[in-house]
Every structure is written in C-alpha cells, then in structure tokens.
C-alpha cells in the first residue's frame, strides 16, 4: 500500500507580537490508505496544530504535507478551500451542527457543495439515525449529534476523515459507540480515518498510533492486532 498521508519535516511557528511560538517542529510521519490512525498526546502537544494543517485550515512554516500525490502545503487559500471541500471530512469535538437546520439539512449542507456526495438520507440511516432525520440538533442527544456530525463528514465522500476528540464531549458508553462507528467506517468502507485524542486508551483500536509530545512526533507504531472497541476501557 502506498503512503497516503505524508508529513515531511513540518514546522509551524506562531507569531504573537514579539514572541514566536513553535507549535510544531520536524513532524514527519505517514498514514496509509484505509488505516485508522490515532494521534495521541497531552494537551498542548501540537495535536490540534497538526490537525489544522492536515485539515487545510492552517498553513505551515516549513516542510511539506501530501495527500495522495497532491502537495497540500503548496496550495493557495482557494485551493485549500477546495481541498477541505472535496477531500476532507471533519468531525468536531463539539459537533458544530447548525442549530437552525434539521439533522438531514445539516448533512445536506455539506453534501450540496461537493462533487460526488453520498445520499444524505442513506448516510444518516447508516449511522443509525434513520428515524431522526427531521429533528433539530437541540432535540438530539450528544451522541446523536455527533453521529449527525459524522454523517455530515461522510456525506461529502471525503478521502480522509479527520476527527478532533470525537468522544471528548460524550459519556463513556456513547463515546464507545461513536468510536465503534468510526472503526466500522474504516474497516467496511476502507475510509482513512485520523482521530486526534489525548486519551491513550484509544490507541488500542488503531492500526497506527502516532504519539505527539512537545510539538514533535515522538513515535509511530503499527498495531498488528487492533482491538475491537468493545474490549478497550478507559
């Protein structure tokens, strides 16, 4: 299998007035297609910076980032927008659903701007929300909202699914079911999934574990026998 996502010596420096903050340095790793990759590290380790760069939400200071054969780090802002639009599905910690849209409409919002969207209704059914299409976010539980958010990301038919602390705002059981859904998506549909978390218990379910600390990649491990989500505890 080819290396699908590649980070090569990525460095990110934020300038805050006079002070320069090095959020990420010499980050090098790769993720293969269809893998479920967990990026783990404590708060302030640079996970979010890494995610922002990979998600096309931020630019980098040095180094190169590739998705497939495309060099994402060389994109113009408009190309970055197109990249987010067509190649990336994003799942937020706090769901970020549009409160004034129903579950179905939230998914349609994403589906209607991309080239080859999946049918929003079917995607919602596939995440188990077939009965709640017409509900507004305020009428859904946290787990259901996160399912909608995942459906929204999946409906774009992206090449890469990025999840930022997808269980961060959820209770243990709900969190587990969400992780199970993500693992299923990776296994069944061959979706490349990258999960960012500070919870190292999640590493057991991953095909590949990338440890981040103090702004750099500490280790990249391949997990030959990822555990089913049911077996992991935290």
């Amino acid at each position, binding site marked *: 299998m080819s290396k699908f996502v590649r980070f090569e010596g990525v460095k990110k420096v934020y300038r805050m007035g006079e002070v320069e903050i090095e959020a990420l340095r010499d980050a090098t790793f790769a993720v293969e297609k269809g893998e479920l990759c967990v990026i783990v590290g404590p708060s302030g380790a640079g996970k*979010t910076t890494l995610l922002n760069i990979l998600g096309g939400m931020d630019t980098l200071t040095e180094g190169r980032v590739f998705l497939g054969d495309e060099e994402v780090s060389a994109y113009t802002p408009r190309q970055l*927008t197109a990249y987010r639009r067509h190649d990336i599905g994003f799942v937020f910690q706090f769901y*970020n659903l*549009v*409160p004034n849209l129903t579950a179905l409409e939230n998914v349609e919002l994403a589906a209607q701007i991309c080239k080859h969207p999946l049918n929003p209704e079917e995607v919602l059914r596939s995440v188990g929300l077939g009965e709640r299409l017409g509900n507004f*976010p305020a009428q859904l539980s946290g787990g259901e909202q996160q399912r909608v958010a995942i459906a929204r990301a999946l409906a774009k038919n992206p090449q890469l699914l990025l999840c*930022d602390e997808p269980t961060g705002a959820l209770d243990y059981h709900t969190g587990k079911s969400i992780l199970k859904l993500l693992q299923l998506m990776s296994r069944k549909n061959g979706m490349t999934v990258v999960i960012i978390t500070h919870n190292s218990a999640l590493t057991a379910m991953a095909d590949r574990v990338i440890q981040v600390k103090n702004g750099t990649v500490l280790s990249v491990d391949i997990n030959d026998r990822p555990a089913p989500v049911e077996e992991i505890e935290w």
Partner: protein
Amino acid sequence: MEKLLGGRAEVRYDTIYAEAMEKITDAEVEITDGWEEYHTQRADAETELDDAYRELTDGESEYEQGQRDYEQGKKDYAQGQKDYADGQQKVADARKELEDARQKVSDGEQELADARKELDDGWTEYYQAKTDAEQELADALRKLQNGETEYSDGLAEYNDGVDELEDAEDEIAQGEKEIRDGERELEAAEDELADAWKKLEAGKRELEENGAALENGLEQLAQGEAAYEAGLQALTDQAEQLGMTVEQLAAASSAAAETLQQLNSAKKLLDETRAELNAGKLQLDKGWDDYYDGLAEYEDGEARIAAARRELRDGRSELERGKKELADGRKELADAKKQLEDARRELDDGWKEYNDGKAEADRELADAYQKLQDGEREYADGLEELEYGKAELADGEQKLADAQKELEDAQRKLTDAKNDLDKAPGELADARQELDDGWKEYNDGRADADREFADAETELHDAEEELADAKEKLKDLKRATTYVLTRDENTGYACFESDTTIVAAVSVVFPVFFFLVAALVCMTTMKRMVDEERTQIGVLKAMGYGRAQIMSKYLFYSGSAALLGSAIGYSLGVTGLPWIIWEIYGLLYGFAPLEYVVLPTLASSSFAAALLCSMGATWLSCRMELKRQASELIRPKTPRAGKRVFLEYISPVWRRLSFLHKVSVRNVLRYRSRLVMMVLGIGGCTALLCTGFGIRDSIAHVADDQFDRITLYDYAVTFQDGQTRESAAAFLDRHGWTEEEALLVHSGSVDVQSPEGSKPVYLVISASDTLEGFLSLHNSEGPVAYPGRDEVVLSGGLAESLGVNVGDTVTLTIGKLGAMETVVSGLCDNYVFNYAYLSAQTYREHLYEDPDFSTLYVMAHEGADPYEEGAALLEDDDVGAVAVNEATRDRVDSMLSRLDYIVLVVVLCAAALAFIVLYNLTNINVTERVREIATIKVLGFYQNEVAAYVFREINILSILGSLAGLGMGKALHAFVMAQIRIDSMTFSSRIAPLSYLAAFVMTLLFTAVISLGMRPRLRRIDMAESLKSIE
C-alpha cells in the same frame, strides 16, 4: 396704497435728473483728461522715433563684425572634424574591449550559476543523506538497544533458571534422605509388630490353658459340693429317722457330731475354692480382653505400615520424576546459555557494526560537508571575483558611455557649428534685409504717428459737441408713472415662502423614523450586551452583589453612552443641518449671517428620549436575566432551538426553494425583533427616499405645467392707459404683429370671499370672452369653459383654500368699485399665484363700468428672444411695462434647483439610516454566528458562498423592507405635501414611478455597499473558532 406711494414719482424724477447731471459733469472732466493725454503721448512718440534711428545705426556696425566672425568659424570647424574622427576610433576600440570583458563576465556568471546549482544540489543531497543516515543509525541504535534489553532479560532469566535448578537438586536430595529414613523406620516397625504377634500368640495359649484349669477346678468343686450335699442329706435323713433334729442328733451321737463337723469344714473349703475360682475366672476374662485389645492394636499397626509403604513408594516415584525433570532443566539451561552466548556475540557484532557505520557515516558526512564548505568558499570567491569583474565592467561601461556621450556632444557641437556656419551666410543676408526693413519701418512709423495725432484731435472735438447735445436733452426729461405690487405678487417672496415650508415639512418627518430606528438599535444592542455579559452577571450574583448593584453597572454604561451620543448628536443637529440649509438657500436669497438658537425643550426632550431608550432597554433585559438563578446564569445559554417556519407547511413553495434559501428563510423568521427593526429601518430608508424624490416630483412639474400648459403667452404688455380692441390692433400693427398673435385683457386684483375666508387674487377678464391660445383653462378632467354671465372660474388651489367647489357662490370685491355675487362655474389648474376669471359682461353689469383693458398677452415671434422684443416694446411711449414669463420661470426653476439639495440631504439621511440598521444587524448576525461561519468555512465553502450564506438573509430582509418602505413612502409623502401649503403656489402631490424605482434600487445599493464592507470581517473569522469549546 397707491395714494401712499403717489409721491414716489416726483422723487423718482429728481433722482434721475440728478444722476444725469452727474454723468454730464463726469463727461466734461473726461474730455479735459483726453486733451492732456494727447499732448503727453505726442512727446513720447518723438522720443521713440529718435531711439529707433540710433538702433539702426548700431545694427549696421554689428553686421560687419558678423561677417568677420563667419570666416574664423569656418576654420575652427575643419579642426573640430579632425578631432572628432580620432575620438570615434578610440571609442570603437574601447567598445570592443568592453564587449570582450562582458562576455567574460557573463561566462563567469553562468559558471557561478552552475556552481551554485551544483552546490545546492550537493547541499540537498547532503542533508538528505544526513537525514537518511541519522534515520538509519537511529533505527539501528533502537534495534541494538532493544537487543541489549532482550539479552539482559534473557540473562536474568537464565540465572534465575540456574538458581531454581540448584534448589530443585537440593530438594531431591532431601527427599531421598527422607525416603530412606522412612524405610528404616518402617522396617523397625515391622519387627516390633512381629514381636507383638508372638507375644499375643503366647498370651492366647496361656489364657486357653488357664481356662481349661478353671474348668477342671469348677468340675471338682461341683463334685465336692455334691458330696457335701449327699453327706448333709444322709445326716438329715438320719436325724429325721430319729425324730430329732440334726443338732439333737449331733448332741446325741458323737459320730454324728463328727460327721457334721467334717461336713462343715468341707463346706468351708468348698466356699473358699469357689471364691478362688471366681477370682480366677475374672482374671481370665480380663486376660482375654487384653488379648483382643492387643490384636486390634496389632492390626492397626499393620495397616499403618502398609500406608507408610505406599507413601514411600509414591515418594520414590515422585523423586524419580523430579530427577528426570531436573535433567531436562539442566539440558534446557545449557541450551539457553548457548543461545545467550550467541546473542551476546551477535549484539557485540551489531555494536561494532553500528559504531563502524556511525563513524563511517560521520566521516563521510563530514567529508561531504567539508567538500561542500570548500565548494561554498570557492563559490563565494568566484562570486566576489565576478562582482569585482562586474564592477569593473560597469566602470568601463560608464567610462565608455561617458566617452560616447562626450563624442556625441562633440558631434552635436560640430553639427551645430556646421549648421551655424551653413546658416551664417543666410543670417547675414537676413540681417541685411532686417536692417533695410528697419529703415523702412522707421520711415512709415513717423508718417503714422503724424496721422494718428490728427485723428485724436478730431475725436476730442466731437466729444465736446456730444456733451453739449446731452445737456440739451436733459432739459426734456419726462415725469414717471407708479405701479404698486404687494409682496404676495412678488415671485421671489413666493418662492421663499414655499422653500421655508418645504424645509419645515421635511424636518417634521425625520425625527419619527430616526427615533424609531434609534430605539430599536438601542434595544438590540443593549440586549446583546446583557446577553454577552450573562456569565458575568451570574458570577456577580453568585458573589453576593445585589440586583440593584449589578443593574446599576449596566445602566451606567448605557446611560453614559446615550448621554454622550445625545450631546454629540444635539450639537451637530443644531449647528450642522441649519448650516447646510442656510448655505444652500443663501446662494439664492442672500441671507443675513446664520444665528444659532438653542431650544431647551428640544434639547431636553431628545436627551430624555435617548436615555429612556437605551437605559429602558438595558433595564428590561437586565431584569429578565437577574430573575434567573446564579447557577443558571453561569451555564451557557441554551441556544435557541431551530424550528420550522410556516412557509415549510406550504410545501409547493417550500419545495421550490433551493436548499440554502430555505436556511435563509428560516433564519429570517427566527428573530422577530430583528425582522421588525430591519423592516422599519430599511423601510424607513426607502420611505425617506420616496418622500425626497416625491417632493421633487411634486414641485418640479410646477414650472413645466405652469408655463408649457397653462400660461402659453410669452409676455404681458401693460399700457399706460386703457385700450380698445381697435387701438390695440393699431399698436400691434405698428410693431409687426397680427391681431391673432395677441390678446387684450383686463388684469387687476380682486378679493374672493367665501364663508371660510377671503383671499386677494389676480383677476383676469378677456376683452374677447376667451383666453384660447394664451391661457389654457383646464383641469384633470378636461378643458374648463370661459365663465359666462354671473359666473367665475377660480384656480384650484384657491378654491381648495377657500373651501368652495363648483356651484358654490362667492363674493368678489374689486377695490372700492363694489362687490358682486358669482357662481363658481369651474376650477382650473394653476400652480403659480391664484387667479379668478370673469367675463366682461358680468363686470359691467355689476359695477356699471367697463373693465380697464390695459394688458396685452403677446406671443413672441418665432425664434425671437422675448427679452429683446420686450425691451423694444418698452420704447413705445404707450407701453408702461413688459413682464416676460421667462423671467418668472427662471425664478421658479432656480428655486427647484435648491430643492435638489434638500433631496440630497434626505438621500444622505436615508443612507445613514440604512447604514446604521444594516451595520448593526449584520454585525450581530456575524458575531453571533462566528462558530457557524467557521464551521461552514471548514466544510469548504468558498469566500463567496460564505458571504452569500450570511448575507442572503440580510438581502431578503432588505427587499422586504424596501417593498414595505414603498408603501410607507407613499403615506409619508402625502403627509409632507399636506404640510406644504402656501398661498402663492399650488403643488399636486405625486411620486413618479421612476422615483419609486430609484428609492428601491438605492436602498438595495446601500445594502450591497454594507455587505461589501462587511466581507473582510467574514474573511477574518478564524477557522480555529470551530474547534473551541462552547463557553
């Protein structure tokens, strides 16, 4: 009034006479001055001519010098040409040299560029190699370290194994010893058991023997007892036979006594034996018991021994197994040891390899680095050399350029010289010619001067004669006639009145909208502020601040903002706006300096309104928040749930909307207060625009309607005296008009009285009972007939202000001549001034005299200027005055052009209104939805799509507001027009369709401008907002 002003004519005559006398005196002075000037100028001319003669003589000598210079110049030029040729050769050589140098430099540059590229490649390769090597080394190191860890783990395990094995051996030895001891003990126990068996057997036998002896004894005892019984019986029998008792017998017979004695002793013996036997029996029983106990004990021992033996057997087999295991363990340990040794060897090899590799890599990298550094140094040297070469080259080039330039200068100079030389003969000839001309001019000038002076003398004499004539004419000056006009008949005054009313009316409208919108803006802003501070309110409340304390903080804030804003607004309002209006109208009317007035009621009411609005809104929203519990306030407000809107239930409409439009529709209807504010604000903007344009539409038509449709004649000629149609015709004939081109009328003033009041207006009576072609009497329904007997036609505005209609009766009072009752037969359109039309017959019948037909309405000749024609007519002695309609029209037009400024002010205010509302709403919209906007940006919406997503609802609201505003505008315009009511002008309220369109389009334009202005704010929203937690 005429009496009052009658003396004016005398005064006027005196004034004019005095002015003429003054002019004559001035002319006399002028003529004297003329003579004086004549003499001065003559002297000057003589001097000038002499100077010219001197100049000409000088010219001649200069000409000869010129010819000499020319010869010298030719020689110099030949030398110059030779020098130039030498210079050219030198420059060409230098250029070739430079060309070579340049080639070398560019070669050098190319080489350097190649070197740079090579170096860069080298560096890239070097860093790549370095990274690779480091990566490889790090991998190797990690592997080696892992190996070491594994090895030491293995070693520890091995050592543990050895220890365990030794323990096991000790245990086995211990076990064997124990088993041996056990066997020995077992054998001893068996021996003991056998002894015990023998003893038991012996005891048994003894017991059996004792038993037999006891049996014998018992038999003997039985026999003895039997013998004893027999003896006792025999004795008893004997005694019985004797009849006596035994004792008696014993006493009687000795034999018997002896036998008895014998018997007694036998008995004693027998008893003793018995006792003995019984004791023996007891003992025997006990012996048996002991025996059985011993037997049981023996069997028990036997069983124990068997168990011990089994145990021993098991122990032994276990021992055997242990031994075997031990042997296996020993073998395994040996293997492990061998493996460990292998691993150690391998690790050592690995370390060696790693160190070698590392050293080699370092060496290689260092070499490469060294080489690259050398390369860099060389490159830098090369670069420096190149720079040096370049500098030299530049220097050379500069020098060459300088030389070239010099050469060119030389060439130019040579050419110039050549030109000069070539020109010289011509110039010389020209000079000759000029000199000759000069001589000619000098002679001509002298002749001209003499002639001109003669002319001037003649002119002066003529002037003296004219002056004498003028003095003669002044004696014939005629006395003047006086006309009186009230200020209502003065167009300027009428315009001024209408202007002030318009401004006053417009100023009424503004506060209404602005106040409403300001109130709404205050409310939304303050509500938002309190919403945003919600958490802080909660914290303050939790800390124990009282409601009043918390509220006062916010009230102070909003109150001070309102005060400050009011102060600024008030000071601008009482100075700025009046100043603008003053400036605009000052151009037309020439006002006195502007005087600012401070109105305490206005000031206090506007301050109070502002304070009430902002503090009231703050108080209301604060109170609502403060009612909640502190804990509830500290938690983030639950976002307003989305909900369906009524439109969704009309599915044919809803289905036709595109997806994003549905979103917008829902958002529009989500916040009702904003909807109201937007519709009011935007609607107000449109309404103001409509009103502004509408005022213009309503008033601008006045000039056109009045002078193109109603007043058709070009000017009115007023005669000194009343005319008949015949005398008028003669007059017209005299001035080149036909009778059809003019109309004789009476034009005077009349008071029209109705139950509601009385108004002085113009009275027009046609001499020929028609105004056809000169004044069009019509209204919106069509032409109005000329009044017949006892009838009057009034202009519409007049009828309206007097409250009369067709068929009503009004009283007309004409000066002191009398009054008459007439029926209103028609109302005609008229915009400037008010008119009453009457027939000559009615006038005659009521007032017993003919009207004084002293006015002639005249059409100007085709293409002629009315002013010039009018001026020409004034020459006629019969004509008292000529009023050109064009003049009135100009006056009205200039008033309308002021009106454009008023409309401009209205448009600006409307724009300000739209701006405030739109900015406020858009700002709220964006601020509240930062998270949503960041999210859709992450989803990959392009800038335009994001803008459309956010602004679409603003646009929808704008269109809705604008449409509502068109309606509001119509009402507002009608209201304003009702305020503008002046006697001398009549306006018809109307808004042109184009004005509606313009108001609508301009409002949308404002929206577009605001949207455009807000776009950078959208661009600046950071996508990272979407990742933040909800506060």
